[in-house]
């Protein structure tokens, strides 16, 4: 009898726990609907009911566009992930190449999509080429990093076991590494799926014939509020579905949930060879850049090599003018980027702490945060601009939101990593929640926080350049779009180089701070 009661109580508890996550989503939808009703005359916000009505009326248009974009995203997703697997295999087969491989991969990942889009458009002409390439570019790095971590995630004793039966690296790869890397691969794929959709959409912004991105540009130009909101909602829904679907697949294949953190820090070993590797990455990048232009016999008017970019920046008659234009644009961009980045990090960190102090909130907020983390925020850029105008506020908020969700999810995950036994020690001294937070939980969270902060650098650059391009007309994003449409390829290529190098440097800077802090708080992470 008593067991029966206990069991039925358990069932009730499980059912209410299942409902909790939906509560957050219902509250969000209700708030949105209410705001939409209140702001009807402002022409900035379409309520869910408006979106639904638009979707029903225009479903054929939407379905056609969605189908095209999904197709491109899927092809790019496959290509990008195959590239990530190949790069990981190279780094594994030849460990000394790992830092060079990841360095080059980072540099390519930091290429501003806003500029590579138009360049690829000129190169490919009409068709799906740029969309697919951009989708692949948006994907490969987010898969490569966790994969590299995963391939090294197995403890040494497992490899000893394989060796003790007289077997070598292939048996270890097959029986141990590949299996141990699977959860990490799924984590990467889960982030990659929405990113591929985002890449395809940005590719469509650059003058495709069909697709969600084309409709988005049309909707912004026509100031069609309902269409803009519907497109953003559909893009968001697709992203969340892709994220959830891969998560569900992972749960079927794996024994446990895939790890939430994107990547743990790169090895701190052999700092003395770091400069050599950086120069090697630089040299290889220049070589590849020149090589591609030369091999494909690209038109020199359009395709600028390293020498031409150097000339344009330092030797040409108008070199100082070019430099001034670029510096001005970069300064403008920094004014949006830096506050947005810092605000996003602070908000993610702060909310994570709040959720730990008030645990009942977290079961509502966590699923929402995880779902929204997967949203390609850039596709919602038009909405932010509609809501907050074309000024600084809109762009800063967009960057902050782009940074906020991954930071929040990583911090919450990190907070859960707190070793229970250490908390027991604090309990035994009757330490309050604030003491526990400061001395145990925050230090335990730092690795996850910094992993998020590092990955947020290229993401925030993407957000700010897209917002400038689509909306504000200021900064380096707008300059790149403008110079692409004016065929001022000297400025365009120079801007691409500057933005990529600065993003990669920003990433490396955060990585350096990260290593300093982890050396104190989590030395075991630096292997």
């Amino acid at each position, binding site marked *: 009898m008593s067991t029966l009661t206990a069991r039925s109580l358990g069932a009730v508890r499980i059912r209410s726990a299942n409902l909790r996550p939906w509560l957050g989503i219902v509250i969000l939808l209700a708030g949105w609907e209410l705001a939409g009703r209140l702001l009807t005359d402002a022409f900035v916000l379409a309520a869910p009911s408006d979106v639904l009505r638009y979707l029903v009326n225009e479903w054929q248009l939407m379905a056609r566009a969605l189908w095209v974009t999904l197709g491109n995203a899927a092809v790019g997703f496959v290509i990008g992930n195959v590239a990530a697997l190949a790069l990981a295999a190279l780094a594994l087969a030849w460990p000394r190449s790992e830092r060079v491989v990841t360095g080059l991969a980072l540099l390519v990942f930091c290429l501003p999509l806003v500029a590579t889009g138009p360049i690829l458009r000129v190169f490919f002409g009409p068709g799906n080429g740029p969309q697919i390439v951009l989708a692949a570019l948006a994907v490969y790095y987010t898969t490569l990093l966790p994969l590299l971590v995963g391939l090294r995630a197995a403890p040494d*004793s497992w490899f000893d076991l394989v060796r003790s039966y007289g077997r070598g690296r292939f048996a270890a790869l097959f029986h141990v590494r590949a299996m141990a890397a699977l959860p990490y691969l799924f984590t990467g794929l889960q982030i990659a799926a929405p990113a591929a959709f985002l890449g395809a959409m940005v590719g469509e912004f650059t003058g495709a014939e069909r697709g969600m991105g084309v409709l988005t540009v049309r909707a912004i130009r026509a100031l069609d509020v309902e269409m803009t909101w519907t497109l953003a909602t559909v893009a968001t829904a697709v992203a969340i579905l892709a994220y959830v679907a891969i998560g569900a697949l992972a749960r079927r294949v794996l024994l446990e949930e895939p790890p939430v953190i994107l990547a743990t820090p790169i090895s701190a070993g052999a700092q003395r060879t770091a400069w050599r590797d950086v120069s090697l990455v630089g040299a290889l990048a220049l070589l590849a850049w020149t090589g591609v232009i030369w091999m494909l016999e690209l038109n020199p008017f359009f395709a600028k090599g390293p020498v031409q970019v150097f000339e344009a920046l330092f030797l040409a008659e108008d070199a100082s003018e070019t430099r001034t234009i670029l510096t001005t644009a970069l300064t403008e961009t920094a004014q949006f980027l830096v506050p947005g980045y810092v605000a996003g990090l602070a908000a993610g960190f702060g909310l994570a702490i709040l959720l730990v102090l008030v645990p009942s909130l977290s079961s509502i907020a966590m699923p929402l945060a995880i779902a929204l983390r997967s949203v390609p925020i850039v596709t919602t850029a038009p909405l932010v601009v509609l809501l907050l105008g074309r000024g600084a506020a809109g762009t800063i908020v967009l960057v902050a939101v782009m940074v906020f969700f991954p930071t929040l999810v990583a911090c919450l995950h990190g907070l859960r990593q707190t070793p229970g036994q250490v908390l027991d020690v604090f309990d035994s001294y009757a330490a309050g929640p604030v003491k526990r937070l400061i001395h145990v939980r925050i230090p335990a969270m730092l690795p996850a926080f910094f992993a998020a902060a590092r990955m947020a650098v290229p993401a925030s650059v993407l957000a700010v350049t897209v917002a400038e391009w689509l909306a504000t007309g200021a900064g380096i994003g707008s300059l790149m779009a403008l110079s692409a449409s004016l065929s001022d390829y000297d400025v365009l290529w120079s801007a691409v180089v500057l933005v990529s190098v600065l993003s990669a440097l920003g990433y490396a800077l955060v990585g350096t701070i990260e290593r300093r802090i982890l050396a104190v708080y989590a030395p075991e992470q630096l292997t």
Partner: protein
Amino acid sequence: MPPDFAPPPEIVCTGVGKTFDGGTEAVQDVDLTLAAGQTTALVGPSGCGKSTLLRMIAGLEAPSAGRISIGGAPPAETLRRAGLSVAFQDPSLLPWRSVRGNIELALSLARRPVDTDAINQLVTLVGLDGFADTRPAELSGGMRQRAAIARALATKPGLLLLDEPFGAVDELTRQQLAQDLPRIWEAQGTTTVLVTHSVSEAVLLSDRIIVLSPRPAKIVTDITIPLTRPRTTEMGRSEEATDLIEQVFAALAQGMAAAQRPLAAQ
């Protein structure tokens, strides 16, 4: 196809030493001959380098001085033939495989046929009846170690190397295993090397005990255990066994004192 019972090899260590890359000297000048089919326990204070010596015998670590031969060949040769099994300190079970799956993996790595009945018998022997299809995460620490022992025995190795195999096993099960396992390796005629902290366990399980000094490990004493086989838990409490235990403790203390003298002189 390899023979069902690989013949037990003789192990000869000549002037074996190990200094790691960082300059830590773990093992110093060990001369040792272990007869084929014997069980030898390596006993010493923690961190003394006894696991390193075991890993060198397994061929997982190369000695930086001296030579090791297993049945007249270098350890790498035995490794290549999959002629040995190691039960590691950390059970090292792959978490995505059940107990049975882990044992099957060892057999397939060693290129031996998978015999379901034999696996079931081993699982029963280590007291994991009913847990063959359970994954390691759902087992206790002691159960995992027993699964690792079953895995090590599954390939019927000529050379069995056990590194603290009973560390997390509870006392009663430990006694049971200490009675049952020697019967297996006697029946298979295995040469067994056992690293352990527990002096009484060393006395009960082995034919010979090598007492090692604190790092770098050197041989302090070599004690023969003349207790008859098969042995029982009661024999472990006999006067003869108690005397032997006293001898081992005395040797350990002697090794510690010798290691501390130069420190005190500084």
